[in-house]
């Protein structure tokens, strides 16, 4: 199954070189310039965090997806002259985030405006100490926009509610199913599950990256067919699909 999905993705990467596959609109990502623009008008910063992710665990892909969006948002912020604050939970992410943001400012021709020690803030490696520190930033610096993309746990509600109370426009995205409803009821824009993984490809508009998304959709179609066949086979008293998948 995994090999089949690999074939779909790699095959679509090649075919997409010829033509950019069509994308479904992701309103949350399209709204990024509007969010930063609002911060520029209000003369307030933009806050970004990637949640409790680390680079070695099972949630690492969510963190990497968040970093791709961070690079993009940093560039928009640099262009608009808006300060972006990145709250860090895992110290190992700091050097990567610092480099990403510095590069975004260099690309915008404003390298002198980037202050790593003020904009990339290591808060704590403990969940609720980190959560309290982010709430403190929200209360003291009142960011006009808050972007949260990555793996979030119990702190999701604390963040979303606090930033909502201070009037921030919010974009949230996570692949952790239990936290999606919390973000859905409070945040202005939401990226659900796999949408955060597609963010990098969506923002880059790179045909080959877009091809992998199409390959992923083919994989999803195969899974869907297997689910339907499994339901029908099980209802008919056969365990052929269950045995095939080794479940």
């Amino acid at each position: 199954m995994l090999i089949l999905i690999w074939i779909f993705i790699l095959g679509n990467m090649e075919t997409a070189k010829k033509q950019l596959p069509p994308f479904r609109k992701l309103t949350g990502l399209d709204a990024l310039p509007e969010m930063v623009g609002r911060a520029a008008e209000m003369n307030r910063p933009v806050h970004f965090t990637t949640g409790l992710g680390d680079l070695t665990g099972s949630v690492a892909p969510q963190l990497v997806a968040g970093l791709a969006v961070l690079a993009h948002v940093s560039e928009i912020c640099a262009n608009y002259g808006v300060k972006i604050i990145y709250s860090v939970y895992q110290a190992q992410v700091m050097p990567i985030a610092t480099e990403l943001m510095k590069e975004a400012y260099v690309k915008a021709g404003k390298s002198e405006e980037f202050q790593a020690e003020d904009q990339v803030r290591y808060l704590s490696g403990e969940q609720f100490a980190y959560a309290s520190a982010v709430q403190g930033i929200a209360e003291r610096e009142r960011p006009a926009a808050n972007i949260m993309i990555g793996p979030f746990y119990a702190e999701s509600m604390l963040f979303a509610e606090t930033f909502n109370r201070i009037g921030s426009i919010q974009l949230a995205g996570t692949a952790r199913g239990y936290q999606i409803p919390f973000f859905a009821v409070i945040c202005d824009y939401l990226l659900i599950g796999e949408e955060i993984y597609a963010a990098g490809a969506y923002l880059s508009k790179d045909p080959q990256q877009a091809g992998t998304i199409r390959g992923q959709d083919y994989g999803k179609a195969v899974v869907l067919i297997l689910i339907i066949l499994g339901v029908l086979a099980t209802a008919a008293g056969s365990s052929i699909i269950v045995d095939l998948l080794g479940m």
Partner: protein
Amino acid sequence: MSTTLKKTIPVAIVFVVAMLVMLDYFIVTPPVDVAGKSWTSGAVKDLQNWGIVLTAFALGFGAVNLFYFHSKHISRRTPDQWMFSIWLLIVIVIFTAIGVFTGPTSDQYNWLYNASYFALSATVYSSLGFYMTSGLYRALRFKNVESGIFLVVGLVVLARNAPALAVYFPVLGTWGSFISGVLTTSAQRGIMIGGALGAISLGIRTMTGRETGFLGKMTEEERGGGGTA
């Protein structure tokens, strides 16, 4: 910075490391040792140890960042901030001193941790109840058809979990179980399957050097060219 240093070398490292970890997970690659483990097990173990060492270094970097950031606020007497900054630095020094002199598993260190952070952590976690109530109050409002469905479903689940109502209206139990056991679970599984496929796709993009978000934004030329967009 040249493309080789900026992209080729990091992507090559990512590719080799990812292939090693995947090989170790899925295949027992010969030669196999007496314990039945393939040669990749040792390599992966070493890589994990390197990761631990790098994380420890990064923690030092984080501590320097904390000291620098808060010292600046103290020296500038930043309103609403500098007093908290002093308190933070004092706490860091106390924890570090006790950790270094008595050890991080000593009774003194454990007492300090449990009496301060543990209690505060539980307090912040408990406050979640208030945040959830205020979020729920805003969410359960009839604005359109979608919010109407959300309102009805939310009220059914809420009523089902209220013991008195569940006793007088047992049907709430059936409805609630259907909502959480069938509707919610199927939606959660859909998200989970999509998320897993998305993670695989992101992994392939990262390994093949197409997803370079973690290396910073790249031009089409730096990314490898060949695009039409």
